């Protein structure tokens, strides 16, 4: 039903706006605004804002090994890492560095998520906090290791799928490492009886290596 008189187009526009005006009182499609501070929408799992560092149990279990891959790959160059001087044993029992300083300048960070993507140790992940406004644009926007470190439980809470997958990979690696370690121990014990040098160390490092590359691939794929 199209009436074509002069001004018909304007009249149709009036009808349309009236429909939206009235519709806004009963049709949620026509009043789409969410009253933000009172109501917050549930974030999709994939949402990423700024990076954070995952630790197991507590800060001493920080997964980061200060390998500096993220620092290198960060397109905005907003990550600064200084290696610790002493190594600690990681979850695989391998002795690794931890970062002494791990700073991210979130004023510079553009939330691209490439750091999380390239991290071979499942350490750096993307957070979902978005109320980051501060009054000072310098110091409070530089997040230090202490602010960045968040528990694996938190990671599970915000990215359940990714976290479960990561954990299973890590468990797998750990199980392998443990069996290897047990085998090594057995071999050592055997070697003590019957000295026979070889495999053990190489096998161990290989297993870590494969797990790391597997993680890299996984990170790329996600």
């Amino acid at each position, binding site marked *: 039903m199209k009436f074509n008189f002069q001004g018909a187009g304007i009249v149709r526009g009036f009808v349309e706006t009236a429909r939206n005006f009235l519709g806004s009182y009963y049709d949620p499609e026509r009043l789409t605004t969410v009253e933000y501070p009172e109501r917050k929408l549930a974030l999709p799992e994939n949402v990423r804002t700024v990076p954070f560092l995952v630790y197991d149990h507590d800060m001493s279990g920080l997964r980061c090994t200060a390998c500096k891959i993220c620092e290198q790959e960060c397109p905005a160059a*907003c990550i*600064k890492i200084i290696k610790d001087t002493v190594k600690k044993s990681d979850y695989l029992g391998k002795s690794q560095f931890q970062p002494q*300083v791990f*700073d991210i*300048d979130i004023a510079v960070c553009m939330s691209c998520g490439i750091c999380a993507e390239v991290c071979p140790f499942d350490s750096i992940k993307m957070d979902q906090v978005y109320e980051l406004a501060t009054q000072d644009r*310098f*110091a409070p926007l*530089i997040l230090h290791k202490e602010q960045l470190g968040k528990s694996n439980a938190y990671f599970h809470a915000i990215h359940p799928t990714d976290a479960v997958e990561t954990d299973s990979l890590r468990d797998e690696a750990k199980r392998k490492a443990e069996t290897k370690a047990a085998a090594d121990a057995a071999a050592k014990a055997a070697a003590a009886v019957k000295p026979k040098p070889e495999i053990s160390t190489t096998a161990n490092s290989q297993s870590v290596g494969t797990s790391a590359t597997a993680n890299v691939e996984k990170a790329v794929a996600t």
Partner: protein
Amino acid sequence: MHTLEEIKNLVEQNVPGAVVQIVPNANPALAGSLLLDSKSATDVAEYLRDVAELKFDLCSNVTGIDWPSKEVKTKIKKLVDGVEKEVEEITKTPAFLEVVYHLYSTVLVHGPLALRMRTIDRAENNRVPSLTLVWRSCELQEREVYDLFGVVFEGHPDLRRLLMWDEFKHHPMRKDYVPPVDEGDAVEVSA
């Protein structure tokens, strides 16, 4: 679509005084380009635009490239004191600025054809003819190349800086451009 050789031949046959050279792509799987001579460039461009077989009427993309002089070490065998020795010889590549145009045809729907022009050097002899009067689309893009690379387009009707401000002295896309120290940089990440 004609091959580069065919286009080159067509141009050389039909445009008097045209000097065209084929520049192969470093990656053989990708298309090469035609290097135009400064003197005949506008004529060649007009020919390419108008000739019925080619009709490159859409000049899609204009860009500059800076090729500063590089030291290339080549190992050559040389007779030194009667003994054949492997000697490293250092040669300097010529320094020049290059402008690349990518042409398409809306009529015959083919392309891209890449045209290149080179300046003699990166300092005073930084002139190439402007193709703005052949393809209007070059107007802003040539200004951009002038602004960022310092290529002077002769015959451009309105050659001013495009992105940087008029008082700016340098050409930021040149490889040897040193950005000024920003005071914001003084704030250390760990501060």
